[in-house]
Structure formats: structure tokens, C-alpha cells
């Protein structure tokens, strides 16, 4: 086989894989604009006959057929919980990552390993005691309860990423700044922070995505519209007698859009963040 032929073949196979990656998502998006009637028709209707925004209207209670599921408040809960816990996790993680990157202290590598291991606890295993403890102290079914939990599960990874990025910033920059008249605190914000910013941003994106997409814990720690998040809300649909496929698809679109936008904004840093944190000794 000639080299050009081989290249073309590889291109075709890659294209096929990309299609497999995209198709399910695209199909869900397409279904979000179709009617349930058309989705359920047998034999299958392949070319959509009439595309509609009704599913979205229903979700936000704008159309004539109102859904029983308050997606609007779920969306708001998700947003408040994810943003708050991300901000907290980034601040806490940045402080920890800086300590690991810049300071020597006995027991450092052990501490780092324990921090990482705390992240491995499966959500469902953690949800059992949290469910009970949070009920006792009244944090169950509150946004605050979920925020605290999400902050904690995001901290280890944030520490890992920011540590990698702070280690990239030469130590003598901070020293130069201190000689130039900065306090250590000023030196951090004026020199080290701006230089590690892209890494910190990527840590933030990861934290946000984790919170935004989490299900195992949220499904046990939330009950009502006060605190239920979108992923938990999605399961409301299946609890009903007949599954509203089109409605679920519309909700899926709503869940994915913020994550999609965020990821594309910083995709370059995401990869740099992961590999820097991991490979460079």
C-alpha cells in the first residue's frame, strides 16, 4: 500500500471514530427539538418532520403543556452550588498547592498521597455516612450541604494541578519581588499568581465540571427543589409512569451547554494542566 493510501485510510478510520463520538450527542440534541409523538412512532421516522422548541418551553414552564419538573430551579441550584464550591475549592486548593510547591516540611510526600487518596473514595460510599451526619446537623437537602461536600472532593485534584503549575514558576521571581519591596503576600498576587493563572483556571474548570456533573452524592443529599441539581433532576423523568424522552433530551442539552462552553474556552490549558501536574518531576 502506498503511503498516501495509508494516510487516507487512517484519516477515514479516525473520521469514523469521531462520528461514533459525536453521533450519540447529536442524536440527543436533535431529539430535543422533536415531538415525543415522532420519537415514539413505529417504524422509525428518520427525517424530522417538524422541529419545535416546545420541549424547552415546557421545561421552563412557558408553553401550554407545563412539565411537573422545575428545571429552572434545578438549573439555578446547580449553578449556585457549582460556582460556589469551585471558587472555594480553587482558593483552598491554591493555598495547599502553593505549600506543596514552595515549602519543605517533613511528611510532605505522605501528606500529598493521603490528600490524593481521599479523592478515591467512591461517591456512593461517602454518601452513606454523609447522609446520616448531614441529617443530624440539618445540612441535608440544603445547598450549603452540597457545596461543602463538593468543595472537599474537589480540593485534592485542585491541589495537584496548582502544585504542578506553581512548581513551574521559578522560586527566585518571588524573591526578586520581595527584594523589590513586596511583602510575601504582594509577591504572590503580583508575580506568582499571574504566572500560574492558566493552570489555576484549568483547575477551576475541572472543579466546576466535577460539581456540575456529579450525581452519586447529590442524589442522596438532596431532596427537594431547594437543593436538587440538574443531574438529579434528570432522574425525575424516569420516575414517571411513561418516560418523556423528548423532555429528557431537552434537559440533557441544558446540562451540557455550560460545560461545553467552558471547556472550549480553555481547552488548551486543560491538557497542559493535566500533563504538567503529572509528568514533570
Amino acid at each position, binding site marked *: 500500500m502506498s503511503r498516501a493510501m495509508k494516510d487516507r485510510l487512517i484519516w477515514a478510520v479516525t473520521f469514523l471514530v469521531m462520528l461514533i463520538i459525536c453521533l450519540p450527542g447529536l442524536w440527543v440534541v436533535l431529539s430535543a427539538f422533536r415531538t415525543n409523538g415522532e420519537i415514539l412512532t413505529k417504524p422509525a421516522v428518520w427525517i424530522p418532520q417538524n422541529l419545535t422548541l416546545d420541549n424547552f418551553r415546557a421545561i421552563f414552564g412557558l408553553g401550554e403543556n407545563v412539565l411537573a419538573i422545575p428545571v429552572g430551579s434545578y438549573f439555578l441550584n446547580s449553578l449556585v452550588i457549582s460556582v460556589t464550591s469551585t471558587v472555594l475549592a480553587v482558593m483552598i486548593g491554591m493555598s495547599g498547592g502553593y505549600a506543596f510547591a514552595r515549602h519543605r516540611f517533613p511528611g510532605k510526600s505522605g501528606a500529598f498521597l493521603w490528600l490524593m487518596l481521599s479523592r478515591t473514595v467512591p461517591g456512593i460510599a461517602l454518601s452513606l455516612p454523609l447522609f446520616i451526619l448531614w441529617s443530624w446537623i440539618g445540612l441535608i437537602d440544603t445547598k450549603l450541604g452540597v457545596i461543602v461536600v463538593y468543595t472537599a472532593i474537589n480540593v485534592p485534584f485542585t491541589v495537584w494541578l496548582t502544585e504542578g503549575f506553581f512548581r513551574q514558576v*521559578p522560586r*527566585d*521571581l518571588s*524573591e*526578586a*519581588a*520581595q*527584594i*523589590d*519591596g*513586596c*511583602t510575601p503576600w*504582594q509577591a504572590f498576587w*503580583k*508575580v506568582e499568581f*499571574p*504566572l500560574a493563572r492558566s493552570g489555576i483556571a484549568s483547575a477551576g474548570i475541572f472543579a466546576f465540571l466535577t460539581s456540575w456533573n456529579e450525581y452519586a452524592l447529590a442524589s442522596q443529599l438532596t431532596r427537594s427543589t431547594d437543593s436538587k441539581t440538574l443531574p438529579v433532576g434528570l432522574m425525575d423523568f424516569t420516575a414517571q409512569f411513561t418516560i418523556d424522552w423528548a423532555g429528557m433530551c431537552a434537559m440533557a442539552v441544558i446540562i451540557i451547554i455550560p460545560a461545553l462552553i467552558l471547556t472550549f474556552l480553555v481547552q488548551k490549558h486543560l491538557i497542559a494542566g493535566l500533563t504538567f501536574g503529572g509528568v514533570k518531576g
Partner: protein
Amino acid sequence: MAEVTLRKIVKNYGALEVVHGIDLDIAHNEFVVLVGPSGCGKSTTLRMIAGLEEVSGGEIAIGGRVVNTLPPRARNISMVFQNYALYPHMTVRENLGFSLKIAGRPPAEIEKATDEAAAILGLADYMDRTPGELSGGQRQRVAMGRAIVRHPDVFLFDEPLSNLDAKLRTQMRVEIKKLHQKVKTTIVYVTHDQVEAMTLADRIVIMKDGHIVQTGTPLEVFERPANTFVATFIGSPPMNLVDGVVAGGEVRFAGDASLPVPPAFRGRVQEGQRVTYGFRADNLMPAGHAMTGIGETADIDLTIALAEPLGAETILLSELAGVEIQGKMYNPRAVAAGERLSCLLALDHAHLFDAETGASLRT
């Protein structure tokens, strides 16, 4: 007035002591160079002066004020780092003006000071570039510019030229010297390159294993090295050292070679004392190629093992009592390996050291 005084300075990292009680007085506007082999504690000492390392013991004073517990920003010093430590996210202008901005000076004053520094260092054309867009020499200049805008009491340099290529290093060395003449300030400069030390310093401080071994002007340490370590560390090629025993006005070496006790050491050695005889290549030359007026000389016949022509002079490699020694031939001609030459040693520039301790027998 900004003299720097170090009193019994000690530094330890945990149980490991790396600087063992250093005493040093640096006068106002003096250019002092700390020199020594890698790992001898030069940077640590400098960083203690800067306040970047805590002092474990002793006292540091700048301008009469004890600064042991003051943070770097309160010491009115500036420092040029080995890797420049320029702020990569700021332009040259911002880098230069950073310290003044932190100090809250008005923009007009900052502008004036940065322009002045840029003019001194020839940076005017690069003011809006970032450090990433500069060459090594330009970065070096920005680092120095950043240090001078503030008019600090003391300049600290930590091997500022070690990342430059040989040619640029020579050039920047001259610029640093000129800079010191233009902006009169106390300078403490760290290097492990003895040529830099010799050319720049008003006074050289030679360190080894966390101790100061000798302090003096470049000529002092070159001509009257306190011990064999300084003798081999300062000057290139290193001083020839041959072990021998004093026997009636002469030092006898293994085999049957011998040389007279140098005039400065007569009466300072005893019969039978074991010594190390030291002389520099510059002072050993073939008869007939010698300069006039070199004082008392001794004759040695040498078999040349190798000749290295350098142009203006030729380094001659030979052997004395089983030790490799080097001499120099001025006004050179071609020399073949194996050729026998009768040479002269200028005794006024020869030294004797104690064979055990390596200390000079001069005092």
C-alpha cells in the same frame, strides 16, 4: 553611608551547618567579590545579607543598622539573580518600574527613573518588549537596570554572568565595572570564576567549605596567597606546587632537583622542614626569553613534554620531581616535544607553604 558588616555569621539547615561563623567588613561604596568553589556557601551568605535566608547565628548590619530580622523589602538592597528572575508577564518598562510602583511613587517619577536606568544600560529600544523577546545579554541588562532604579544602599549579585557565553561575559564584565563607577554603591558580588573576581573586585573574599580563607585586593591574593588553596584557585594556569625538604638554603625535591629558598622566606624556615614550593607559570621562562629586571633568579633545565602556543605566549608543560609543572615562553618560537630548555625561575615570585597545612610560610 552603607557599609555592610557580618559578625560571626552562621547558617544551618537542620543539623547541617553550611556557613561557619563568617566575619566580614565591607566599606561604603566598596566592590567586594565572594569567590570560591561550588557549594562553599557564597550564595547562602549573599542570601542572608539579602534577607532571603534566615540567619542562624551572628549579626548582619547594613549602614550601622542590624537587619537580622528585617524582611528583604526593609533592607534597601537590590539583587541580580543568576537566572535574571525577570517578571515574564511584564514588559521591560514594567520590570524596571516595578519596585517604585510597589513603593507607591507617582507615575511621573517612575517614568523618569526607568528612563534614566534604561539610558545608562542602553535599553531604550527594548522598553516595550517582554523578557521572552530579549537575548541573554539584554535580559542581563534589564536585571541590572531593575536593580539600579531604586538607588539601593547595597547591590547584591549572584553569579550574574554565568549564563552568558564567553564573549558576552567579558563584555558584561566591563559594563558592570563601568556601572559601579557611574552609580557609586556598595556591591557584593558572588562568582566562582576567578577571572571575574580579579577584574571586578576592589577586594576579593575567598571562601571554602563555609569559611573565609583569605581577604584582600586582587593583587594581594594573587601575589601573596595565604595557602595552597588560594594559590591554585586564583590565577590561571594554577600555581605549580612541588613538595620538598629544606636543606641548607635550598629546597630539595625527589630525585636530585633543588631550588633556592625564595628571598622572602629566608630565615622563616628550618633545616629539614617539609614544605611545598610554589611558583606561577608566568615566572618560569626559558633563558633568553626572560624579561629584564625580574630580580633574583634560579636556573632549571627542563625537558618539554608539550607546548601550547597561544599566540603572544606559549605555555610549556614539563615535569619537576615527578610533578607536572607549567612555564611560559614570551616572544615565542616553535618548540618541539622532547626539546631540552634551560629556564629561569623568578625567585621574588616564588612561595613556600607548609607541607602539612598548606598555609603560607610568609608570616
